[in-house]
Each structure stands twice: as structure tokens, then as C-alpha cells.
């Protein structure tokens, strides 16, 4: 499978912020020797370089769908990146200190696009609820929200017309309803990926991609929204438990290792 390797290498080395960077020991695939490599985590991509100054990564690990675990290993501060498939390779890594190991385990276990998307959706929902609450209370002083789609359709859900409705209403048609009133701080323009939308308007907050498929019809059941908070909570709990368990393991190990 072809990959846009040149762009990947650029992404790895450009000045976009890294989520973590440092030396780690990586065990080779066939041989059990560990090699010291410079690792850079950006988003859900873990790049590794032969040297810190290398212009191009030796390789990259796409982290989507992985789990991160502490290891029972002769190697100190070891941890593993595991994937679900039957024949998937497990990447054995080791940090140079306890602190570094913890930091890497934490950032890697939360590096997936899926996880970030859940957090973003959750915050979007919170903000939406707050804005609806506010708008209902002050009779439309924030202007009328419009459905956030490239092509506006469906009934306008302006708070001036529906002040008494519960805040759950805009979610029932499965569509996140956004306030595009001027003066409201605009969310990030996707400027690194082009400028304005097709109408030349500044960009309103993004609608989570997956939800869009079910949101084009006004009045369609908002089942997706009901699932979202519990899915988020479940996943977050899962990650949280995992990190807590890793910490516990480490603590026990540490205490056990003391004379």
C-alpha cells in the first residue's frame, strides 16, 4: 500500500507541536536487541528517528486502535504498544527513567484520533447546551443559530421563536445547532487546510464527521446523541482505568523492588 511518505516525513519534522518527544529504546522485530531511537509523537503518529538530528524518520507507528501496557521485562521502564489483530506486531519500548516511562504511557494511550474526537464532541455538546440555555434565557440576544451544514436546510431553530423548549430539542433531530452570530468568537479556521467554506463565511465550530451522516434530515431521531455521552464516558473510564492500573502496577513494582 502506498503512503504519502514525503508528506509524512515533512509532518514528522516540521515545526508543528509534538505531543511528546524523547529517546526510547525500541526492540527490533526479529532480534531482541534494543536500539536507542529518537521518538516524536504527533497526534496519532509515533515517528522514530535514528538520531535526534536525522532529517527523516526511520519509521512510524500508526497508533489508532492500540493499547499501551507496562511490561514484565528484564529491561527497566519497559512498556509495549499492542494492537488487536491476530498477527499484529507488538512494539516493545523502554524509557530511560520512571518519569519518562509514565509520560510516554500516558500520552500514547490517549493519542488516538478516536479519543480526541470523543473529547471534542463532548465539549461541543457542553458548549451547545450552555448556549441554548443562555439564548433561551435572554430571548435571542445571541442571534439565531442555524444548522451547521454546508447547505442550510431544515427548519431554523432560533431561540427567539422557541424560547420555552427544553435544551434537548436541538439534539433531537440529530443535528448540532450552532450560533453563527457575529461577535461570537469563531472557532479555528481550517486555515492550514484552505480558507473559508464555499460561501466564504468564517467557519463555525465543526460538526463531528460521523454524526453528519445521520443529521441531514430534520426530525430524524437523535439516537446518535444519546449514545455519544455514554460511549465517551465508557471509553474515558476505560482509558482512566487502564492508566490507573498501570500506575498501580508501577507503584507495586517500585515498592517491591526496594530493599
Amino acid at each position, binding site marked *: *500500500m*502506498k*503512503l*504519502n*511518505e*514525503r*508528506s*509524512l516525513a*515533512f*509532518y514528522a519534522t*516540521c515545526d*508543528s*507541536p509534538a*505531543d511528546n518527544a524523547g529517546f526510547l529504546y525500541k526492540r527490533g522485530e526479529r532480534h531482541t536487541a534494543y536500539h536507542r531511537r529518537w521518538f516524536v509523537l504527533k*497526534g*496519532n*503518529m509515533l515517528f522514530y528517528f535514528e538520531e535526534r538530528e536525522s532529517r*527523516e*524518520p*526511520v519509521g*512510524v*507507528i*500508526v497508533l*489508532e*486502535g*492500540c493499547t499501551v501496557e507496562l511490561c514484565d521485562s528484564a529491561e527497566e521502564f519497559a512498556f509495549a504498544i499492542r*494492537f488487536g*489483530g491476530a*498477527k*499484529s*506486531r507488538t512494539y516493545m519500548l523502554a524509557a530511560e527513567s520512571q518519569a519518562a516511562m509514565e509520560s510516554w504511557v500516558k*500520552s500514547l494511550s*490517549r493519542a488516538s*484520533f*478516536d479519543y*480526541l*474526537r470523543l*473529547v*471534542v464532541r463532548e*465539549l461541543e455538546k*457542553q*458548549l451547545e447546551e*450552555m448556549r441554548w440555555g443562555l439564548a433561551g434565557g435572554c430571548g435571542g440576544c445571541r442571534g439565531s443559530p442555524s444548522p451547521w451544514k*454546508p*447547505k442550510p436546510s431544515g427548519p431554523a431553530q432560533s431561540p427567539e421563536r422557541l424560547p420555552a423548549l427544553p435544551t434537548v430539542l436541538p439534539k433531537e433531530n440529530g443535528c448540532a445547532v450552532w450560533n453563527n452570530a457575529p461577535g461570537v*468568537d469563531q*472557532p*479555528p479556521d*481550517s486555515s*492550514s*487546510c*484552505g480558507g473559508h*467554506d*464555499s460561501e466564504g463565511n468564517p467557519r463555525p*465550530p*465543526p460538526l463531528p*464527521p460521523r454524526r*453528519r451522516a445521520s443529521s441531514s434530515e430534520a426530525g430524524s431521531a437523535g439516537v446518535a446523541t444519546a449514545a455519544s455521552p455514554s460511549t465517551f464516558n465508557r471509553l*474515558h473510564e476505560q482509558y*482512566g482505568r487502564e492508566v490507573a492500573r498501570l500506575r498501580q502496577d508501577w507503584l507495586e513494582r517500585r515498592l517491591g523492588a526496594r530493599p
Partner: protein
Amino acid sequence: MRYNERELLSLARQPAEKAAEVLMRVPKKGSVLKKRLVKLVVNFLFYFRTDEAEPIGALLLEQCRVTKEEENVFSISFIEEPERKYCFECDSEEQCREWIEALKRASYEFMRRSLIFYRNEIQKMTGKDPLEQYGISEEARFQLGTRK
């Protein structure tokens, strides 16, 4: 560059945010538009021959630019090589617009900026940091004002 192909292939098989049959042209000399199935999964755009289960290739959608070209056509290029364009011809202007919207928002970096924006907004409105309850408020990658 080495990469974990098995996992990438597995990702390509997952349900897509968006998928369609379009005409695609890669930025190679002499290449022509070919019918492809394109599939957007997280921040990757996979492209397949229409009758094959395994993708021909994948584009990581970071540091890229999505541009409307002529009618029904958009392109993806990467900022370090803006003239090298992957072109996609859709069935309609509407489909074209929808893809542009979706692709512009498909990057991890865009989502991160959105998160920072929402966090900031909520904090302004409530005085509280919404990330605290999730235990991720200290993470450097979500800090306000540290990103361009």
C-alpha cells in the same frame, strides 16, 4: 519509511466517516483520472480500485490543503509541495462541497485546535476548565496559547 501496514490495512476496513466512488488522479507525470473508491477514516484517506478489498494507497491528511478546483473537482495537496495535487472528480457540486468540508476537518491538528477553542469558550462562560473532570487538563497538547 517503515510503518505498521497491517494496522493501517485494518483501519482501512473500518467503517468510514465518508466513502464514495470518484475519479482520482495522482500527481504523477502522465497520470489520468481513474475510477476509485475513496474512504475517509480518522485522518487517513484510503483509495481502492473499485473491485478490490485492499487499498492501493493512503493519504495522511495532516499539513494538507484541500482546494476547490473546476466544476465537481477538488484537490488535496501537501503544504511542502503545493503543486503536487491529488485530484478528485465527484458526481456533483454538492458531493464535491461535502468532501471538501469533511476533509478540511479530518486532521488531528484541526481537532486539537477545536478542542482548545471549545475549552476556552467553556472556560470563559463558566470559569471552569471542562477538561479537569477528564483528568487531561494539564496535558501540553491541549494548552491554550501554546499553539499557533
